[in-house]
């Protein structure tokens, strides 16, 4: 630090006006008028009594009012909830207002002065501490025995290793990042409506229409037995894909849904720009199928503008042109939304030609 640092007292020498000192104390009505004092006392006690009443009313409301689904019954909040909230709120507020009224009107209000001390300890204390520290370190021999000191520091640093490694099984078993590259879509797997579970034919989709879809058998199995390991009714590709998952768990469905969800749109074929990235034979009569998972941070993309063929993500407004290979036309996404090659099976239902040819969803380091 250089020497031209301004350090010492500027305060006093600079004063424009000498400090006139503390303002004289003024008395409150409650200090000098006994009637005002009594009145304040009654006010405070009255507030406390009002709080008691409210607490009792809370208990009454607790038992008196029905709860349940009629949440919009009264003022959109449910009778029980409103009654409980109001009574509890007032019971608490009356105590708070009462105590503060007491403090303001009846408790002495003379301003007092306390002197400050530097935040630091007195110099002699500091010196004593330093010499104690020095003596202690000297006696420990930490400075001299470098071998002991360094190995001790080393051993403690290495202790971080067990701490980190112990968290390894946050993901039990080997981590296979390549699962991000594939979904349950398989050649020949039908595309079904994601609310009804019904397989879709090209004629079910009109020009300009968008259908939210998913692979057949993932969520809506044709038969029962979803929970008990009986997957015989499911389409073969799904069964094969999930062979390793012994039980048909809720979260496995969700994990697959998070990658396999798609949208189908039908666009006038002449409006579509076919390219190497989006060849004509991936579409069926102008029906194209794209991943529903945004390439930005993974929200499901849901807003469709039929005139411009733009698909907008409701989370961060990335916009993709589905008539042009899912190209990004606006927003923070960096990559086109992946397309699922589509065709029609012998029975006339829309099916996948294959899985997606690139990972769906947000980018990650190893994506390449």
């Amino acid at each position, binding site marked *: 630090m250089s020497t031209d640092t301004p350090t010492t007292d500027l305060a006093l020498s600079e004063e424009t006006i000498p400090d006139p000192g*503390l303002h004289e104390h003024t008395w409150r009505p409650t200090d000098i008028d006994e009637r005002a004092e009594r009145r304040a006392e009654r006010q405070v006690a009255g507030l406390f009594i009002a709080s008691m009443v409210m607490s009792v009313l809370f208990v009454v409301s607790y038992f008196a009012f029905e709860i349940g689904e009629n*949440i919009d019954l009264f003022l959109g909040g449910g009778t029980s909830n409103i009654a409980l909230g109001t009574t*509890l709120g007032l019971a608490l507020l009356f105590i708070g207002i009462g105590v503060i009224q007491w403090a303001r009107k009846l408790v002495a209000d003379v301003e007092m002065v306390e002197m400050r001390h530097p935040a630091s300890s007195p110099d002699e204390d500091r010196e004593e501490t330093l010499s104690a520290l020095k003596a202690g370190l000297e006696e420990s021999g930490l400075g001299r025995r470098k071998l002991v000191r360094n190995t001790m520091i080393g051993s403690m640093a290495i202790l971080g290793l067990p701490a980190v490694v112990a968290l390894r099984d946050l993901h039990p078993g080997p981590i296979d990042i390549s699962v991000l590259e594939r979904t349950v879509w398989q050649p020949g797997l039908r595309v079904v409506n994601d609310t009804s579970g019904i397989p879709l034919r090209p004629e079910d989709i009109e020009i300009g229409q968008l259908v939210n879809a998913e692979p057949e058998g993932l969520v809506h199995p044709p038969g029962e037995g979803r929970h008990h390991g009986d997957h015989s009714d499911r389409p073969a590709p799904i069964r094969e894909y999930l062979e390793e998952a012994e039980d048909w768990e809720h979260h496995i469905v969700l994990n697959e849904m998070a990658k396999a969800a798609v949208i189908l749109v039908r666009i006038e074929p002449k409006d579509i720009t076919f390219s190497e990235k989006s060849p004509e034979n991936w579409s069926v009569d102008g029906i194209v199928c794209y991943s529903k998972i945004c390439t930005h941070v993974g929200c499901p993309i*849901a807003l469709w503008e039929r005139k411009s063929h733009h698909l907008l993500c409701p989370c961060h407004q990335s916009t993709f042109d589905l008539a042009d290979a899912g190209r990004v036309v606006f*927003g923070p996404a960096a990559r086109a939304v992946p397309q699922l090659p589509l065709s029609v099976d012998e029975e006339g239902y829309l099916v996948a030609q294959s899985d997606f040819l690139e990972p769906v969803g947000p980018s990650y380091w190893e994506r390449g």
Partner: protein
Amino acid sequence: MSNPSVTSQVADTNAGTASKPAKPSKVGGAVTWADDRLGLATAAKKNLRKIFPDHWTFMLGEIALWSFVICLITGVFLTLWFKPSMAEITYMGSYDQLRGLAMSEAYGSTLDISFDIRGGLLMRQMHHWAAMLFIASMFVHMIRVFATGAFRKPREVNWLIGGLLLLLGILEGFAGYSLPDDLLSGTGLRIADGLVKATPVLGTYMSFFMFGGEFPNNEIVPRLYAAHILLLPGLILALIAAHMLLLVHHKHTQWPGPGRTEENVVGYPLLPVYMAKAGGFFFIVFGITALMGGIMTINPVWKYGPYNPSQVTAGSQPDWYMGAAEGVLRIFPGWESYLFGHTISWNVFVPGMVILPGMLVVFLAWPFLEQWVTGDKREHHLLQRPRNAPTRTGFLVAMMTLFGLFWIAGANDVIAVLFQLNLNHITYFMRAAVFVAPVLAFIITRRWCISLQRHDEEKVLHGYETGIITRSPEGGYAERHAPLSTERAYTLTARENDKVLEAPNGSDVPAKGTRSTKIRAKLSKAMFGVSVPKPTREEYLEAQEHLHHELEAGHEDSHSPGH
């Protein structure tokens, strides 16, 4: 000693009955019992009647403290029924529209708390409102501390603790609203997963460890629950304790005024005034939260439905304190690089992990920058009015502007619908505005502060405007000015003039450290060369004389009955 309850009287005669120690009072007895065992009287004697200064802005941190306590109380209630599990159940509770649906236990038990536990909805809503109040009051408290220079020595460490508390509070809030596993909170987690995955090198593995597999899997809710009810609140509590201990050790800052100096603290004693006021205030915050929980719906998870990764609600918006993060994510351009077979998602990584944390770091580093530039190593206990630190105030407003713009950008879709604007245009506008508006805000605020300083100077020297218009014999009109009271004038001038470091003389031999000295001198001129110096004593006395003269002349002139 005149105190009649003194117990050390000694019998001075053997005649009659021996003298006995007087019976101590009940309070005295309890204190003696406790002190014999705990030995706290030494600490308590200084602190029971500790003086705290009074000002409404000193209450903001108190709101944060009390709302955190309310979160703890209501949170314990919620833990009694909430089941942090993602196992699938079929909902059979009271809410008709979701009955029979498959959902996670977490979502099902949240519905139970809302519809089948009496007072459960109230506690859930109070918990959520108190959490919002907690974070909001921390923000405002931080702005207050920054704007008044309360972070200066010796309070720098407490400033950092406060910043850490804000960060932890936001994480705690995010963990909390992710727990119900409804469609909205699941979408929030989906975005968090995208953010984590965008971390270079480690991101993908971090995501797999976080979720115990692929997103969403069945582990994240119990893990967030552990963080939300144990880890984060534990850290927050410990930091609050440290924050309060330092507050007591430093004694509170105070506004300058008559009798208030750097060496003293003027105000009211903890016992009884502040114990009553602060204790009463706890009940007021608690009461207001209960009223809000009772009559204002918040986070109606039953309307969103259970989480499904293929669904989303249009216009989905996170809790307000995540709004800035959401906004910067929305307006950042879609930049991505591909290097040696690896993907770097600048479009997610930079807004999520660099910009906002960077803003916090710069904000927290400001006190150290200021100290380095001024070289001021003294303790400061008198607050500064924002106008008297124009550069600092300008910087604060610039940062608030930037944060506010990010926040607005987080609602660009809502704004587009509300004002019938083109969404893309709003986004383009925001991309430019985040660069231009903070600079404008800085310049305007700084100029504004300087003119307010001039206004103060004028009031001190030329008095305040009385509203009395006088007409001179020549027919001219003038408003009469009257001098400020000495106390008011003292308060307005109780500040230090800013000092500008002199640049080192251009010596031919560059001494060690000259470079940094030069930077310091430049910064010093830029930051502190703009303030209006306060009037000197001579200027003040001269102006007073003039003012009194004028006033007397005015009295002689005007014989209107109104005076």
